[in-house]
């Protein structure tokens, strides 16, 4: 068996709390994880193998406990604990709910989120890393194994946070990361993990989620017979090339091997692809200035989610591309021509492609990134074949008709969609456009 603890053993925290071992959950390279309970609540305990239980690790953990979790998407160290039965230390954290699935499950297609929830998950990950970096921290080891999401709603959970450190503190490194996620300068051994390398890993993670494929794995990858350390160092570090680099065709995805990249690249709008092109051309070799920032990903992902249009024939989610409207697009599932629906164009220049499931959030009005507040939904007329926008907020809207008369739309009232209708939401205007 050789586990460090048995059921029933007790662990103590410096503040006097006692945790009881309930069950062994698993072990990794650094230590073992147990299910524990204290005062009728269950937690997870990670206990370090003695060799890993260094003073530096302890100090790093104490700092994380002190700083606290950036938001509620992290499974964060709550406190350090000690035991009279084993040398060294461990830490207590919350439990990962079973509703969260690993990225591996998406890669193996064991879960099938909608594009809407997949993009929400991407947004939530970006937002969480933004919060982490805002606290002066860096994650260092983004990989499949420590990022989880709920495919039913896009909520995310980021685990293994004991490797998080203060940015640019090179003194103590216990992990460098997973090769396919690591920034080229780290693969080449030229840099330690820091916020800029996190940005690179984040763009790899987003690419994996949205394309179920790796951004640097095309012909150059399939030409490699044995994918060993040397091959990985060349592919990801010494000579990395984006699979859709506009100026370098040498690494295009290979049909039959990198099918997902080919399929998904056809589906997404140009502005999203442009972000990835930048992330994996300029971003490959310019860590300080070339990488796509979290605030850019955030805006791009919200726009992507608001560009979802449903095929009139088979109902599959596709994407409208307002920057490329002359390109007639076909549904990826049934090949029918996509009909562009009505658009709500804001005076801020953002827009939403309106469909029966569209939501207008507080964010759309004030760029506040508040998505907990829905201020408008799509509502069908009870008797006529007519759709409108329902005022779910607590304030009046004003609508200007084409004859310049104004109509008040009170909370819970719905205004029907009519071309060129202008809606004053208070913070900004929106205009209905049924034709582009």
């Amino acid at each position, binding site marked *: 068996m050789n586990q460090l603890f048995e059921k029933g053993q007790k662990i103590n925290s410096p503040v006097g709390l006692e945790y009881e071992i309930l069950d062994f959950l698993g072990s990794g390279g650094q230590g073992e994880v147990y299910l524990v309970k204290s005062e009728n609540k269950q937690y997870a305990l990670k206990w370090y193998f003695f060799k*890993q239980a260094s003073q530096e690790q302890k100090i790093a953990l104490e700092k994380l406990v002190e700083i606290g979790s950036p938001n509620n998407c992290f499974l964060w160290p709550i406190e350090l604990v000690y035991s009279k039965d084993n040398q060294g230390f461990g830490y207590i954290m919350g439990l990962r709910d079973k509703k969260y699935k690993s990225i591996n499950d998406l*890669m193996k297609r064991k879960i099938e*989120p*909608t594009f809407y929830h997949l993009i929400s998950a991407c947004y939530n990950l970006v937002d969480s890393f933004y919060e982490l970096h805002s606290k002066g921290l860096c994650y260092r080891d983004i990989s499949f194994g420590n990022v989880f999401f709920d495919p039913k709603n896009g909520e995310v959970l980021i685990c293994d946070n004991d490797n998080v450190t203060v940015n640019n503190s090179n003194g103590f490194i216990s992990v460098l990361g997973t090769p396919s996620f690591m920034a080229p300068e780290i693969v080449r051994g030229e840099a330690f993990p820091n916020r800029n390398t996190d940005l690179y890993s984040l763009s790899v993670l987003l690419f994996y989620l949205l394309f179920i494929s790796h951004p640097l794995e095309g012909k150059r990858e399939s030409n490699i017979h*044995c994918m060993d350390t040397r091959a990985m160092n060349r592919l990801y570090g010494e000579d990395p090339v984006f699979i859709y680099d506009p100026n370098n065709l040498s690494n295009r995805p290979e049909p039959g091997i990198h099918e997902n990249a080919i399929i998904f690249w056809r589906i997404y709008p140009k502005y999203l692809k442009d972000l990835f092109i930048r992330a994996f051309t300029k971003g490959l070799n310019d860590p300080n200035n070339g990488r796509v920032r979290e605030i850019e990903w955030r805006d791009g992902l919200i726009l992507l989610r608001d560009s979802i249009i449903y095929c009139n024939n088979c109902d599959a989610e596709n994407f409208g591309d307002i920057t490329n409207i002359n390109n007639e697009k076909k549904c990826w*599932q049934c090949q029918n021509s996509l009909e562009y629906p009505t658009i709500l164009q804001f005076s801020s220049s953002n827009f939403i492609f309106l469909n029966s499931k569209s939501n207008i959030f507080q964010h759309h009005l004030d760029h506040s990134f508040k998505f907990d507040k829905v201020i408008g939904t799509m509502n069908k007329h009870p008797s006529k074949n007519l759709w409108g926008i329902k005022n779910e907020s607590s304030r009046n809207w004003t609508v200007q008709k084409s004859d310049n008369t104004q109509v008040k739309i009170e909370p819970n009232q719905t205004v029907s969609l009519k071309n060129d209708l202008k809606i004053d939401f208070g913070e900004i205007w929106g205009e209905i456009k049924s034709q582009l």
Partner: protein
Amino acid sequence: MTLPGGEISSRPLHFFWIVDCSGSMVGDKIQTVNNALDETIPEMIKIAGENAKAHLFVRALKFSSGAEWVVKDPTPVDQFKWIPLDADGVTDMGAAFELLSEELKMPPMPSRALPPVLVLISDGQPTDDYKCGLRSIFNEPWGKKAVRIAIAIGDADVDTLKEFIADPEIPVLEARNPQALTRFIKWVSTAVVEKSINPPSKLPGEKGHSGIQISNDPILEKSDPETKSSTEIDVW
């Protein structure tokens, strides 16, 4: 399906158990090996589940008087079953190496894979021309690229096993008691597989290495205290 496309592109990881079933393995040794190998299966399935870009295939080869395949076809790990082996005969390690080298040719090996993992478990001295078999393995590109590990049980010929590993940075794992044997087998089936899929990288300033580190592995830290301090050799 709400999303287009399919599974992410992956590579096979071919894993080979090469087990000494000579007469000296009778009793405790072969039973420990049988139990330990059976117990590796759930752990390997778990690792395979956590690594979408690798498909783990397992095979097993036994040798005593001659050599033969126990499981010849690459078997997806979730379908792999361990059939307990008996022990009897001499130690024809060379014959095992020849059989192995046939499977490392292209075909049947694919042109695109992860480094294969070859794990040799032996308690004795080879009784045939093992060098010839070893040459056959190293003549194959996949044989050269494979991660080769050896577990020595009791008084095995460590020098032979070192020749099999052919990497000064990877020591022979010397199992002097059943607990250590079980631990080494478990470590090989988990950490080595994991490291073949996700090799560690070097720190700035560090020299490159083969990717499989053993000296830092916690498993060796958990050796029984008697083994570490005693000058006695455990004898089965």
